């Protein structure tokens, strides 16, 4: 199927401990607003974390600054022979599961959607999903 990303990444995403920590740190810094960013990879392996600007209003939405996204997708990442492998955002006050909004606005089916929950401020956690044609499937992250 043309929508599948790099082999293996569909069912298990190798989010490294320091990338996990970077996303949680970003989420905490941005709270009570949602944070957002992307992870770029090469040959299916995540290699770069790019925190991005959330241009959405209020505390319950995110939209990655389209200018930053365009620069990454069309300029920086092709130059580096890399591609977007994951998109992350935070749910500052709710569980790490795709909301209806997340599903409706999932325009990047090839990417893994990582959601960081700060619902319990002392126990932040991240889960990963693919969202394709309205279907949510969980992607295994390293323990």
């Amino acid at each position: 199927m043309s929508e599948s990303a790099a082999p293996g990444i569909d069912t298990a995403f190798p989010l490294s401990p320091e990338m996990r920590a970077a996303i949680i740190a970003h989420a905490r810094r941005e709270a009570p607003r949602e944070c957002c960013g992307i992870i770029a990879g090469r040959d299916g392996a995540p290699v770069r974390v790019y925190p991005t600007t959330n241009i959405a209003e209020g505390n319950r939405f995110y939209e990655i600054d389209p200018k930053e996204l365009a620069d990454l997708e069309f300029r920086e990442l092709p130059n580096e022979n890399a591609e977007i492998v994951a998109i992350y955002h935070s749910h500052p006050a709710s569980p790490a599961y795709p909301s209806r909004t997340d599903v409706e606005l999932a325009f990047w089916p090839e990417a893994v959607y990582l959601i960081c929950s700060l619902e319990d401020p002392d126990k932040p956690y991240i889960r990963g999903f693919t969202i394709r044609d309205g279907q949510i499937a969980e992607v295994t992250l390293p323990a």
Partner: protein
Amino acid sequence: MPWGVSYFLMKNSEYAMHDRAKATRTTPEQAICGPDAALLASIAESAVARSIGNTPLHRLRRYERYLGLPETIELHLKAEWVNPGGSIKDRTALSIVRAAIKSGQLGPGRTLLDATSGNTGIAYAMLGAALSFPVTLVVPGSASEERKRTLAAYGARVIYSDPYEGSDGAIRLVREMTSVAGDDFFYADQYNNPANPAAHVATTGPEIWRQSDGRVTHLVAALGTTGTLMGTGAYLRQQGAVQLIGVQPAEAFHGIEGLKHLPTAIVPGIYDPSLPDRIMGIETEAAFEAARALARVEGFFAGSSTGANLAAAGELARELASAGQAARLVVIGCDGGARYLSTGLWELG
């Protein structure tokens, strides 16, 4: 305990004990691991690790004449760009890595993490490739294209921090990450890790002492993590009456990559303000001009921090000359000029 001179002069075994004690305090499970013998052995076998250090010390006769200095004042440049990763930071990184392996903080599959926009990151990435441990660097989004590509070439992972917050922003982000999951990776923390100055106590200092026939009178070293001045200076101070000169940008907003304007930056934990005899502030343009002059007069193509050191050394040399003093100044040549081709340093014109 502040990282004073006495601390730098501890024996290697004492460092290891101290590191282990520190690890036990913060993360008990790390100390249990113990050193990974295979990883330690791989340092001894690594061609890259073995080619770090023992760099030449060059007398700059043509540059002395260019400045119009009397024969009694000598400038010597420590050519750190001949290190395999291209900078003095290879020494720092190797020392930090070795200490971390010995203390059990770095082992197979465990990631080394640090905040660095520059040469230390390249050195970690190089050693990670050469010794087979993963490396992730927190880098300001403003880092140059050649930096990003160099890190990618060695296979290091990168997390970007706010481009507007510069290197301090990268340090802040790494600290936040450590507070989230500090046990899951090894935070090398070059700004606070005693193995940073220890590298220069063990290698840079003795080399300079030997190469200058024990006649060095002044050491001129730029301040970034401050490890070079702290470690080399501590060693030289033990050997004789050497004046220790720290070089920083004259202003908070400057274009000398890797240097810190201490009054407005996060002051490194390894910095001991009582050690330097003098801190000189250098304008960005003066640093660039000295680097350009070095290339044209001596044929050494060095970077902007070397330029800052040379500009400070030139100023100092003139003062000493007019006071009628004899001196042998040793100037740290931090890295080469090719790393800054896309910056304002080498614009034609």
